[in-house]
């Protein structure tokens, strides 16, 4: 197994700042916007962006929720490994809100497809956008593309993109892992 650094801590920080600015450009003061981190790995990125928007860009009262998609996935009973759920924490109604899904890596698009269904349990959003740190090109199974992306990478199917966060993995870095 070998791994190559795709983004180091400084590059991640630059990307996060750019993504935060792009969100402000579109969503202004976030009064009609809610952020939703996709469980499990999207919540780290979502928390980072929220903190950045609040501290560096002085935007107040950003609503952030966590959405677990386990029970909405399309591979139930198809994989050998049982699906394990995580906590959903959405303390607001998404009815008529601009929703921004936040996930670390966009790969096949199936998670996002599930999230699109799952979020409907909390109302009918006005609009849904997708923000991902890494967009894996040429690997989509569904017609789903990000509205905001940190970095686009080309990775073949046997390769894995691993996003590490300081608060969970001890460092900020993105690796391309080859088996």
């Amino acid at each position: 197994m070998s791994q190559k650094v795709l983004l180091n801590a400084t590059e991640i920080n630059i990307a996060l700042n750019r993504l935060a600015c792009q969100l402000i450009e579109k969503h202004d003061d976030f009064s009609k916007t809610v952020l939703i981190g996709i469980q499990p790995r999207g919540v780290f990125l979502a928390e980072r962006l929220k903190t950045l928007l609040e501290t560096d860009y002085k935007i107040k009262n950003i609503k952030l929720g966590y959405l677990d998609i386990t029970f909405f996935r399309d591979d139930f009973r198809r994989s050998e490994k049982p699906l394990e759920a995580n906590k959903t924490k959405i303390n607001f109604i998404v009815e008529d809100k601009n929703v921004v899904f936040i996930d670390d890596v966009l790969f096949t698009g199936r998670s996002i497809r599930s999230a699109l269904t799952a979020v409907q349990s909390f109302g009918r959003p006005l609009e849904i956008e997708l923000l991902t740190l890494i967009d894996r090109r040429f690997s989509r199974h569904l017609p789903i593309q990000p509205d905001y992306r940190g970095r686009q990478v080309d990775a073949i199917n046997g390769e894995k993109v691993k996003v590490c966060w300081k608060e969970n993995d001890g460092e900020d870095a993105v690796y391309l892992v080859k088996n």
Partner: protein
Amino acid sequence: MELSVNHLLGIKYITEADIQLIFETADHFKEIINRPIKKVPSLRDITIANLFFENSTRTKLSFELAEKRLSADVINFASSSSSVAKGETLIDTVNNILSMKVDMVVMRHPNPGAGVFLSKHVNASIVNAGDGAHEHPTQALLDAYSIREKLGDVAGKKVVIVGDILHSRVALSNIFALQKLGAKVKVCGPKTLIPKYIEKLNVGVETNLRNALEWCDVANMLRVQNERMDISYFPTTREYTQQFGLNKAILDSLDKEIVVMHPGPINRGVEITSDVADSKQSIILEQVQNGVAVRMAVIYLLASKIKHSEVIN
């Protein structure tokens, strides 16, 4: 993680890890059934038959709601309106239903062991919804889940089960579940309604309600099952109530606040008075709500063991 079993026939047959997995999964479903839209699409391609060879209201409704919240297709069957009355055997009845492509059977039956028997002879996941005076595993799971929710943990807690232990499948399943989770269990009731060999299960016996209540953290009040009593087990209902009925006076005279549970249906004024059943110490309605979440967890986890390839072929 997945369950160690393919059927839920009784608490006796599952492990502590299974129970913990069911509880963790139920936590997620409890959140889901409190959403504006309370449904997930997981079991869209699963069909479940609810076979009730014995009367039930709450358990049947709870199972049906749990199945529908998971998007399963549901068919219902009650023995009074079926061919069982015409002499059909249990295996024939179930195989006829299974030939209509049913993946899972939830069954209540008056004979102890009916679920175990069926699981050996038919090709479907079986969930026991009560078999005679043997087991009622989902009730025990939701009772233990409700204790965990109220008190934070089941391990180390003292639970007394009061009433008709002899005829109660709820009591037996509760004893197994609570002990597996590390709780201490006592039973309390008239000697005639306590099975002879109960002490072999490591369960203490108490015939004085006050002593039992002073010892416990949780009191689970069972219904007197008049319909199962072929002889007189106590002189009068009034005398039973005087000795084993839970009322406000005795509850208030304790130097601690205990949790009061009841699996329903309640005979108000017999085993529990109305003011106790409706008091803030009672978690009877929480038990009912948790019942749906716990049953969703059981059905989801059992269904996840039915491989998709088997359904396609």
